[in-house]
């Protein structure tokens, strides 16, 4: 089910009303499980069975892991969980990609393979599979690492895996963070209700007003022939898409956090003003924090032999770089990060792009100390790096991406003559960039003078946001991150 819909508001109203009217904790957990399955089934009911199956596998396996006394047996059961979870993910998400690449290789040796569709194979990507797979895997690994005890209650476990606010596009939360919240006795609080409502309004405002409007501007730019774009065009395209994906995904996270809060459950933050970062390390501590933290604890740190952490906060940061194996781990991790986002070489390129910059910032002195010596320059440079990084993410092919990068590096392409992007888009990119810094500054002032924050002002702000949402809300607009 999409958050930015009347259907979701109705669903939320019913669920929140029922949740607080149920007298017992057990009944509430049962309601969350059933509602979450219904939430998923509103997309395609048959695929909700797949999520339940995935949950069942990890519920069963984690009990076996905990029961096994020998390390070899524990490893065997963990491997079983990984094979099933990753097997499903690879099958649904990467079959076409793998087959297409095999076809290309076969073509190079004059062997022609039929297209999968011609063979009668049609695979639909289940909504949110990358998110809930990571969540269930982390549960089994946490049990294996003995950082949590396995649950005996399958209903509670289903509620954790399928908890609707974070089911489709995260945040990717750890069992140790969510299960105690779900399982605790909670009392109805108007503060939770008000905070949750405000957060949902902010999230919908970001998604419906900004992200969906920006999509109308961004999509036509990326259908243009890449070679004909000027460098200014490419920068504008990168900035506009950078803002679109930020508003889209952080808006989703806001609605997720707000929806959970309506049930008295506090989710950790998933975004923290990423475009005011002063280094790649800073950026990845602010962007999609729960994914970065997941990759850090379940992939990167184990690869470098360092101690993992147990919270979905902090992002993909914090490791020593004095070993060659750590460099290899960095690039491998980012390659996987890229492929996690999508089954295409453009996403792999996106991952490598970020690995290169993280590597450069760690290794080269001038970059390493930039944020201390000239903070504003560091923020400006990082803004350009992060925005240019969205080009492979959004471009139609690796060739298009390389053409655009080539344009950015060509001083003769920095011209306004023959531009293919309209002046309105130029202005929009400029306004959004200025607005982003302005909003960040205002929020800092507001936090500093939090006592002076007027309740009336917040109500007026929300009312204006709701009006804007109603003006911009159309029938079905998906979130970019749904495809991951």
């Amino acid at each position, binding site marked *: *089910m999409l958050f930015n819909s009347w259907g979701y508001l109705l669903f939320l109203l019913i669920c929140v009303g029922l949740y607080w009217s149920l007298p017992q904790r057990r009944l509430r957990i049962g309601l969350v499980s059933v509602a979450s399955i219904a939430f998923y089934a509103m997309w395609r009911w048959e695929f909700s069975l797949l999520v339940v199956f995935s949950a069942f596998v990890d519920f069963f396996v984690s009990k076996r892991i905990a029961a096994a006394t020998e390390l070899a047996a524990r490893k065997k059961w963990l491997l079983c969980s990984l094979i099933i979870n990753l097997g499903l993910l690879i099958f649904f998400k990467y079959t076409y990609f793998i087959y297409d690449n095999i076809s290309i290789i076969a073509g190079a040796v004059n062997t022609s393979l039929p297209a999968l569709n011609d063979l009668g194979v049609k695979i639909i990507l289940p909504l949110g599979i990358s998110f809930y797979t990571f969540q269930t895997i982390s549960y089994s690994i946490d049990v294996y690492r003995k950082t949590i005890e396995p649950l005996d209650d399958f209903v509670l476990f289903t509620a954790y895996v399928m908890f609707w606010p974070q089911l489709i596009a995260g945040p990717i939360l750890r069992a140790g963070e969510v299960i105690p919240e779900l399982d605790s006795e909670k009392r109805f609080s108007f503060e939770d209700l008000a905070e949750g409502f405000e957060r949902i309004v902010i999230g919908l405002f970001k998604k419906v007003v900004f992200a969906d409007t920006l999509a109308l501007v961004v999509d036509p730019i990326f259908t*243009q022939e890449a070679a004909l774009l000027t460098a200014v065009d490419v920068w504008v395209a990168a900035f506009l898409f950078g803002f679109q994906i930020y508003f889209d995904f952080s808006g989703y996270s806001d609605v997720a956090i707000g929806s959970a809060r309506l049930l008295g459950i506090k989710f950790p933050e998933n975004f923290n003003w990423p475009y005011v970062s002063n280094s790649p390390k800073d950026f990845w501590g602010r962007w999609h924090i729960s994914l970065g933290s997941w990759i850090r604890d379940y992939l990167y740190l184990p690869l470098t032999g360092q101690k993992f952490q147990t919270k979905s906060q902090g992002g993909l940061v914090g490791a020593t770089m004095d070993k060659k194996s750590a460099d290899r781990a960095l690039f491998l991790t980012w390659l996987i990060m890229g492929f996690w986002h999508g089954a295409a070489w453009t996403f792999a390129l996106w991952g490598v792009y970020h690995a290169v910059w993280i590597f450069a910032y760690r290794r080269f002195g001038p970059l390493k100390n930039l944020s201390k010596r000239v903070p504003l320059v560091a923020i400006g440079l990082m803004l350009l790096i992060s925005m240019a990084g969205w080009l492979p993410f959004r471009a139609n092919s690796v060739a298009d991406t390389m053409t655009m990068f080539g344009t950015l590096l060509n001083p003769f392409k920095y011209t306004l003559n023959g531009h293919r992007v309209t002046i309105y888009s130029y202005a929009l990119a400029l306004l959004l960039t200025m607005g982003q810094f302005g909003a960040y500054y205002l929020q800092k002032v507001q936090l500093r003078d939090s006592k002076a924050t007027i309740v009336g002002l917040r109500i007026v702000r929300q009312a204006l946001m709701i009006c804007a949402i109603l003006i911009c809300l159309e029938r079905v607009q998906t979130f970019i991150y749904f495809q991951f």
Partner: protein
Amino acid sequence: MAKDFDPKNFGLGKNTHSFVNQFEDMQISGFADDVTNLVRTVRKFREDGAKTFLWLGASQLHSINQPNPGDKLAVTYANQTSTQKSANRRYVQLSEPNANFHELWAMLHSVISKTNVDGVILGFTYDDLNEPGLRKSLIPFYRASPIESELLEEQQSTEKSAELATNKTPQAWLENILVDQIEGRLTAFQKRGLIRAYIEAMYKNWIVQAIFAVKKKPQVKLIPDRQKWNEKAFTRIREKLSEQEIPLIVYKAPHQPGMKPFYHPRKPFDHYHENLSKTLTSSKNSHYFDFETIVDSSHWGINAAGQPDAFHFTVVGHRILGKAVDDAIQKLEVDNAL
């Protein structure tokens, strides 16, 4: 904001307004909402023995710059010209602002599925190949047309943001019911498209001008995917008319002569029309006329940014265009080409 504010007029530019005309007490021009009335008019004209032509196009047809009381649209002047010549030709016009070819297809289908016409006249602006989407008022006609599902899917794949199949899901079904209910009860929500159009026009014409002090209108290039998408609908229009043996008369829409910069880059614009002319004149039952420079540069409007308007002219332009169209049809009749 004016009480009778209409974003459609705002988009037309300064002192340019849209009109609906009558001729012989029958409505002869209108928008998608007026299809029923226009079909009635076509039937009446044909019953009276007149050869009746359906004239399709964008805002140029229904808007007049600096209008005075009594000023009429080109379609009225075309009918008057025919009457003055004692000819029995009648014209009925259906137009929407920034209409693309899918919308033109929907408008055409809305009429010819209910009544016969003796010919279809199409004002081809070139810019219409760049127009995306399908306005809500036309969706019922589009859905009723036999090509609905295929083209609708193409529209979705053209607009790349929605890559997942969210149509035909329980959620889409529920959402349609809820939105229909809310739109039916809340007029302001129903009009949100117009409000967005106003905000967009305000952004383009005031905010951007204030930031950049733009003195000239930027040139617009066609977006390849969108062009293909629109051309597909144009091909459907031609095929449908050919199948029903209804003549198609396409004209290159008048453009302000000598305007600098030209709205589109000149070279691809000329090249496109050259090819279009060749294609149409070599096809059975289709014709092409070049009306680009028929309206002198002194008869054009000013857009909302205070710059020369490339598409909308004063009543003089309407008189010239109306006469040009009737003369062209008369010539085709004389040549037995209709």
